[in-house]
């Protein structure tokens, strides 16, 4: 005897909006719509053997499983975003039946409609600033040859212990100067984009093992932008990149993303 399937919900859109027509979700399942009160949720079937509470808890700790499901979730949202305004649901919003999805749409109708209005015609863009630490140290610090020479001179005077401490001090000074310069670059770029965009969020830098980035990530930010201002954003990012190039700073722009970071009351509402 097999357990009945569950329904995974991806996002909510207005019932009048097209949404994807032939999209496939997690496990290649067809994405369907559940409509209620002018809203539509995009859902697809997932097996209870993988997505009921106990197996889900186990599976979420498996990075490969998590990556696959997260990518499938994102792909459905990307597809829907290309066709209109959506409210992204956080991963793992799962229901037992279409009836339960309808009830949710009815219960949360005002909140979801409010979020759709707030996000209308707006998308999220991600901006990362990556710096080359060695280039920054060179730009910020004293000449490494000079400090090596000084360290050599003092080593003769004060022994190996003194040379070690001197070297540590020089390294620390160079690191602090480079860090200060990197923070300045990040702050300037963020300030420019924050003032231009409708809204902004910063996040901790990403883990290299997942992102595969080169250099040090000194800014990881998201900006809420009107769809029709994409070209303008590209222009500003290009110009900022030019201006900071000599410091070895690189700006990465990705998007458009579903406006995950800008759902009104997304996080706070969950605590209430």
């Amino acid at each position, binding site marked *: 005897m097999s357990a009945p399937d*569950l329904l995974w919900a991806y996002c909510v859109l207005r019932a009048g909006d097209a949404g994807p027509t032939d999209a496939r979700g997690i496990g290649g399942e067809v994405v369907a719509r559940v409509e209620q009160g002018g809203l539509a949720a995009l859902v697809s079937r997932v097996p209870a053997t993988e*997505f*009921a*509470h106990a197996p*889900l*808890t186990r599976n*979420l*700790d498996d*990075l490969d499983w998590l*990556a696959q499901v*997260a*990518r499938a*979730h*994102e*792909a459905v949202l*990307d*597809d829907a975003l290309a066709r209109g305004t959506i409210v992204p*649901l*956080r*991963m*793992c919003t*799962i*229901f*037992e039946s279409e009836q*339960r999805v309808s009830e949710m749409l009815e219960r949360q109708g005002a*909140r979801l409609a409010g979020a759709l209005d707030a996000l209308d015609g707006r998308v999220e863009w*991600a901006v990362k600033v990556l710096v080359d630490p060695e280039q920054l140290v060179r730009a910020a610090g004293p000449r490494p040859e000079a400090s090596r020479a000084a360290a050599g001179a003092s080593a003769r*005077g004060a022994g190996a*212990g*003194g040379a070690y*401490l001197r070297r540590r001090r020089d390294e620390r000074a160079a*690191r602090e100067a*480079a*860090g200060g310069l*990197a*923070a300045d670059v*990040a*702050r300037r770029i963020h300030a420019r984009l924050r003032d231009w965009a409708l809204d*902004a969020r*910063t*996040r*901790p*830098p*990403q*883990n*290299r*093992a997942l*992102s595969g980035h080169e250099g*040090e*990530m000194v800014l990881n930010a998201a900006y809420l932008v009107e769809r029709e201002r994409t070209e303008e954003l*590209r222009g500003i990012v290009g110009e900022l990149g030019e201006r900071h190039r000599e410091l070895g700073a690189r700006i*990465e722009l*990705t998007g*458009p*993303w579903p406006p*995950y*970071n800008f759902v009104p009351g*997304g*996080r706070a509402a969950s*605590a209430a």
Partner: protein
Amino acid sequence: MSTGESRFPAATASTLPGHPSEPANLADILERVLDKGIVIAGDIQINLLDIELLTIKLRLLIASVERAREMGINWWESDPSLQSLDPSDEDRGRLERENRELRDRIERLERRLEAGEESGR
């Protein structure tokens, strides 16, 4: 069913503009789908931040933050938009604070040693 056409028309929305064929990086996706988006109670009650997943999340986030802090790049810590409502972050915050305090103590000790070296000559 569709014949020969892609099932995912125009689904390249989240790729890097300069690299249209490159899929979005996993870090970009996970930091969004796990942590952001509207939270609605479904029938499977699972707190994404409250299970073993937490160990993954911490492993993913902390390593890079520590590395950046070594360079002194931690200005986002004072950014109010980073203040989290997630109680699990409080533990992390405490550990990070302790870590920072220890680091500062080591630096102070090293400075005193340096000063001792210099005045002792």
